[in-house]
């Protein structure tokens, strides 16, 4: 936990410095009230001070608790889901809602979870259609239609 919190502290110190840099063109005060740069600068100070305290604390009185678990298989599944979500988001408008959700469901069931049961196949096929019916048809929510108009 010590190394993780040290990293977190350093991250926020760097974030605070970045905020100071990004907000340099924003006025801190106007004639009689705080300007657009007032709150960001204040927050930057909080990031730098609190982040520094958290980082330094690891050498004086380290945080207790265990370090985050890093199971390669589990991390692999998480990365795969992120990649899959990225693909689905990129293809959602060109391909439409139902097709892109089919890709998502199939990718999860068959690619990540490697589940090839009848229930899995039915779930892959029916969930996108069911949600399309509920949201687009019954509730009138606008969903991307894509090349196939659904």
């Amino acid at each position, binding site marked *: 936990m010590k190394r993780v919190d040290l990293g977190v502290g350093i991250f926020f110190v760097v974030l605070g410095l970045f905020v100071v840099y990004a907000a340099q063109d924003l006025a801190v005060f106007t004639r009689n*009230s705080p300007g657009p740069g007032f709150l960001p600068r204040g927050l930057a100070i909080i990031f730098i001070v609190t982040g520094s305290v958290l980082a330094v604390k690891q050498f004086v009185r380290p945080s207790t608790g265990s370090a985050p678990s890093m199971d390669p298989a589990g991390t692999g599944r998480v990365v795969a889901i992120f990649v899959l979500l990225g693909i689905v988001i990129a293809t959602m408008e060109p391909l439409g809602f139902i097709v892109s959700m089919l890709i998502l469901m199939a990718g999860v069931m068959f690619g990540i979870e490697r589940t090839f049961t009848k229930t899995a196949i039915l779930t892959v096929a029916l969930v996108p259609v069911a949600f399309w019916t509920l949201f687009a048809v019954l509730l009138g929510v606008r*969903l991307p239609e894509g090349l196939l108009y659904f």
Partner: protein
Amino acid sequence: MLDSLNSLAGGFATALTPMNLLLALIGVTLGTIVGVLPGLGPSATLAILLPVTFGLPPEGTLIMMAGLYYGAKYGGSTTAILLNIPGESASIMTTIDGYALAKQGKAGPALGIAAISSFVAGTVGVIGLTFLAPVVADFAVSFGPPEFFALTVFGLTTIVLLAGDSVLKGILATALGLLLATVGADIVSGQARFVFGQIELLDGIDFIIVAIGVFAVAEVLSNVEHQASTTIFAVPRKFRELMPTWADIKYCRTAFAQSSVIGFFVGVLPGAGSTIASFISYGLQKRISKHPEDFGNGAMDGVAAPEGANNSETGGAMVPLLTLGIPGSAATAVMLAALIIYGFRPGPQLFTEQPDLVWAIIASMYIGNLMCVVLNLPLVPVFASILRIPYVYLYPGILVVCLVGVYSLSGSVYDLWLFLGFALAGYLARKVDLPPAPLLLAFVLGSLAERALTQSLVISDGDATIFFQRPIALVLLVLAVLLLVSTLFGKTDTFRKKVLEEED
């Protein structure tokens, strides 16, 4: 008081006609569905419904709208408890203990307590509207930007209560939430802040994107990482274990009581909203609870308090709308539009010029509240049983719902990419024990606080003592300081005791 009772009786006579009862039922049903589904807020649904209601009589329209407003409050707790998705900002506090209870196999009791608390506090809120409307209307008018700023500061200090073991990380999470709230065009100067050339960010970041990414998807990823391929929630088989017990209800009685009062009075303040009401109530309940150590880990009263305040707030929010013509929220703004379209003049004279309409709306809120609990309580075992579905089949559906919820905001793929970024951030935050609740709460309150601060200093021509010259603002600021000091001192004292125990 007798006059109010007579008028209320007349209102019931109007509200209890078959047509108006049907419209109330349609409203609460639609509202419950809207509340359950993230991304679909009651205000957007009301705006969509408005043209559809032109063929209806005015009292019928407003009865249906009030029912929808109410129903959405009930529905919001369902996804918050079952899926860790706060459908609206007021449900954030419910997710904290509600989802923890669901993981312990107590989703049913949690949903039941949420429904009961919503009913009790919602009824108290409408009673407050019935008898106290003219009195509290004056209170609402006396609340200006300095009072609002002090209220938001008080709200932000209650966030410290959610910091868990690491106050430093809680402060960092809160500050990060405040920073995210600054993204977009500054409301006073119009200058763009932290948009980095992205015009899509000029309007700021929508709450739903952050909430769904940081809460819901991060939770899904965390469960997937730990190989949750079987059912991760232990859902009881017996029906009676799917409902709250009398002991649960009795345990939550202080939560019912205080949330009713807090929700109503905060709801009266235009713009304060149910978010502030829910976490002031949560914070207070944590202070007075017999088992404050359970908060954050599955406290039943940690669900009852915010849900009660959330629903009692609807009664309070109707006060400025009906008595002053001031909408307290986006949803009541649509109702105000409906009143104007029908040719009514919202304001103090509405009670005298259109008593039949006003008292019919108030009476329908009693009926709508009852309909909501009658509709929702029997559905508790049904909703809780959703968690019996093996997680491998459940979580892809959750991801689909999240994508729909985000896309429905403005039909923008950019929002989806932003959501993915927040999902990654939320997942990493969990890995390093950075609490997400303070981040989200600060994100909601940040823009309110900054706007109120700027307005206050413009009014006072830069004189900061305005906050100490206004009694309500001063009291709230003092309470905030006391709360912060007592909480930090309490944590320091606990830490010191732990160190002393270790040395022994």
